[in-house]
């Protein structure tokens, strides 16, 4: 192994942490993808996880995904909460029998030595009502802090996962704070350099947190968001219908599962923004979640009729 330059050390550099994880999972045979180019609430929404978890085909991928949780914005004033943050996502389908060991290996790679750190797997069942997905697994603790989510997907988009995929989600900022020993997200060293050249997380994102908090809580155009939600919902249905295999054709594949799923993602984000603006009542909330779930299920069904979902070309 070649020795790392100091500014790439995951204990000193946020980007060093990301790059170390990418390299580690690349060695486990993962394709290293780039973030999905849409606003999502969690790394799971990336089609590389949601859709690829469905169907029989083996799949290994890892990627960073910016995640938007409009409600979690704190105008940049809370040292632990952000409305935009990074998740590092790994999916291995089927999960290899030694996935726990592989995970512990990744911790070792970023400098968490299990001779001095207390790493624990604490029960945490995962469920995404909007995606119609659930799985069993743990939150992974390091010295009492939750650093990752570890889930064996049982169902996605209302369909049984066969085979089951193992999913790992690392909360990158929190992990980096622990590794770097800082008390505020904004103090994280982003590029690992010192002095004039040092760029902090705050340099990159503080202004964004302030601006988006204003937007999410005060100014987001709710009328437009409601409209966009309806539009996305309609478009999703429309694309799903248009992509259905033609009657009488030899080709039984669905032709537009992915574009339809984009609209499902969009609807979900619109809902999150509306929720943050406080314009969705408790009872309505449930029905919006249900509407997104119906889209996710329909997209999952379509995906299972594509090549990626296991249908022969």
């Amino acid at each position, binding site marked *: 192994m070649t020795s790392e330059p100091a500014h790439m050390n995951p204990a000193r550099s946020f980007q060093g942490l990301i790059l170390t994880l990418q390299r580690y999972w690349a060695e486990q045979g993962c394709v290293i993808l780039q973030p999905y180019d849409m606003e999502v609430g969690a790394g799971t929404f990336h089609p590389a996880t949601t859709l690829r978890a469905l169907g*029989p085909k083996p799949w290994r991928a890892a990627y960073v995904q910016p995640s938007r949780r409009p409600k979690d914005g704190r105008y940049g004033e809370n*040292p*632990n909460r952000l409305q935009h943050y990074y998740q590092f996502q790994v999916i291995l389908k*089927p*999960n*290899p*029998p030694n996935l*726990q060991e592989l995970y512990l290996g990744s911790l070792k790679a970023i400098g968490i030595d*299990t*001779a*001095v*750190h*207390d*790493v*624990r*797997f*604490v*029960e945490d*069942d995962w469920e995404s009502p909007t995606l119609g997905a659930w*799985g*069993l*697994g*743990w939150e992974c603790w*390091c*010295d*009492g*802090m939750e650093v990752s989510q570890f889930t*064996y997907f*049982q169902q996605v988009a209302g369909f049984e*996962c*066969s*085979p*089951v995929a*193992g999913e790992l989600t690392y909360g990158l900022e929190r992990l980096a704070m*622990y590794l770097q020993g800082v*008390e505020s997200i904004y103090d994280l060293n982003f590029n690992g350099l010192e002095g004039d050249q040092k760029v902090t997380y705050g340099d990159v994102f503080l202004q964004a947190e302030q601006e988006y908090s204003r937007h999410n809580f005060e100014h987001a155009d709710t009328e437009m968001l409601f409209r966009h939600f309806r539009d996305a919902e309609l478009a999703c249905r429309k694309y799903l219908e248009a992509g259905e295999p033609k009657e009488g054709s030899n080709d039984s594949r669905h032709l537009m599962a992915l574009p339809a799923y984009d609209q499902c993602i969009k609807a979900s984000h619109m809902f999150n923004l509306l929720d943050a603006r406080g314009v969705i*009542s*408790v*009872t309505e909330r449930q029905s919006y979640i249900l509407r997104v779930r119906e889209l996710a299920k329909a997209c999952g069904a379509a995906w299972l009729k594509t090549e990626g979902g296991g249908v022969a070309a």
Partner: protein
Amino acid sequence: MPDLLLELFSEEIPARMQRRAAEDLKKLVTDALVERGFLYEGAQAFATPRRLALAVMGLPVKGQDVREERKGPRVGSPDAAIQGFLKGAGLASIDQARIESDPKKGEFYVAVIEKPGRATADVLAEILPQIIRNFPWPKSMRWGAASKDSGSLRWVRPLQSILCTFGPETEDPEIVRFEVDGIASGDVTYGHRFLAPDPIRVRRFDDYVPALERAKVVLDADRRKDMILHDAKDLAFAQGLELVEDEGLLEEVAGLVEWPVVLMGSFDEAFLDIPPEVIRTTIRANQKCFVLRDPATGKLANRFLLTSNLIASDGGRTIVSGNERVVRARLSDAKFFWETDQRVKLEERLEKLKSIVFHEKLGTQYERVERIAALAKEIAPYVGADPALAGRAARLAKADLVTEMVGEFPELQGLMGRYYATLQGENPSVAAAIEEHYKPLGPSDRVPADPVSVAVALADKIDTLVGFWAIDEKPTGSKDPYALRRAALGVIRLVIDNSLRVRLLPAFAVGSRQLKVTDAASETGDDLLSFFADRLKVYLRDQGARHDLIDAVFALGAGSAEGTTGSENAQDDLLMIVRRVEALGRFLDTEDGANLLAGYRRAANILRIEEKKDGRAYDEVPDLQIVNDHGLIEEKALAVVLHQAREETAAAVESEDFEGAMRALSRLRQPVDSFFDKVTVNAEDPAVRANRLRLLNSIREATRTVADFSRIEG
């Protein structure tokens, strides 16, 4: 006698499921063995985060030989019958069957089938895979490549390996060979995930336990608990502190480690300004750590105890500092919530309750608060509370639901309201009621005594009950999603423990009137009251009261005693019912009571027979003229005493003096005894006979003023 050792090694099992799973494993395996005729001397089951283990001691090497005789057809039966018999009994030819004779049937064939007992190990290899496949985990999952097939093994988390040996103490045990979804049983296990991960070869339970100990695994959860508790107390003592014990947390923590190492951390003293319950809840819920207090003052100390799963090479320094960071962040959040919450007065939060739906059909929390406030004011005078204070407390009672703190820690509802109310200068009774109106939460929870708390607690529960009754969401069987039985028991305990006189039906009526449910049926009150009657019976039985006495009092029921109907005379005064049951019990324990009961029974028996014979009832008032003209002295005496006793008993009941009522009744005993001694009921003169039957009826009626004696047993 040989022993069985079974270990199911898996990825981390949720702490809350471990104990139950060990018990289930023991029961399933031993039941399956006993069912097949294999008795054993003892069995023990264990669980750690990564394994379930079972040791069954003193099993036989093989099962009992079984000899079975099977009767066949008569000698000389058609060949088809003979062939069928041979096939069924597994015989090659009819020569192998014995011939027996019977005086009725004549000669017939008998097959003797001898089955040698099967080797225990073979039987185990057959039953264990089934038990593993059908294990009753509360939640289970599929995993890995095998999960592409439907019907693949489900386990709580991926099952990694199976160890199974069987054999006598003196020899090397053998592996009980079987396979479950590609996992073959063997004699290997693994130690602590980080401290001793290498495979360990195991022969039997006796070397399994010490081998695990050497590999830093404490198999027995109770021992892990003892270790944690002992170390925690020691560490606390060394700092002059005291552990705040928490059995639930201890049980959970013991399920999160295979090798417990207790370490102490601390936090900034400034956090001690936060209410201690908040600190404890934060540290417990998020960090699964224990808190400590100063034994001198009883106040929380700025220390906590964590239980790690590691003998760390740096003595735990890194672990402690990591945990301290998290505790610091959590307490900062809590402090922030605590301070922010204080900036908004509770009454200013009410508006927000409008957006919280209590139940789709029962409106928002805001509407509910309005109803509870109105009801609390109505109830207040009956429980000795100031209606204005009760109303105020009820209005503020749910305001803390929209505070940051309760949003984060729902279990602090009520308590936070009390803190914030106190800080904003509310009357102490109002503040207390905000916390206490949820109480009592179960049969062992404390019952509030402050009248304001009682008024709001009753209003809260009655509103809930009346509401769910109105929308027909009553408990059925074991289903009680809204905890309505608990609410009713709460009302009962509030009333009885505080000796309160509260008529339930009027309270139900006030509650019902406020509901916006259009089809709130008028019979809600009576139906709910009978639900209360059932709950009260359960409550009294739990308190040790005789169920027949409870029935005897309840049988008087709605208006039956005086012939009125409807709710006018209903038993909706819980305290009076309880007093009556108590007084009746004491009365029956006296000699007078026991004899009167005997006299009552004699009268009731005669009446039943004669009324049946005559096809009519003798429920008219006895004709005193006939008694005077024809009666014996004992008959006259009874008539006079009966008349007096009835009036006195009724008057005593009217003034709720149940002891007095029983005393009045007890005066009947002597005349009733004498009457039966001297007087023949079935007199020759039909008029005299009829009148005597009416006298007996009067005895029955007199006792009905206090209870239905026919329900009393023994």
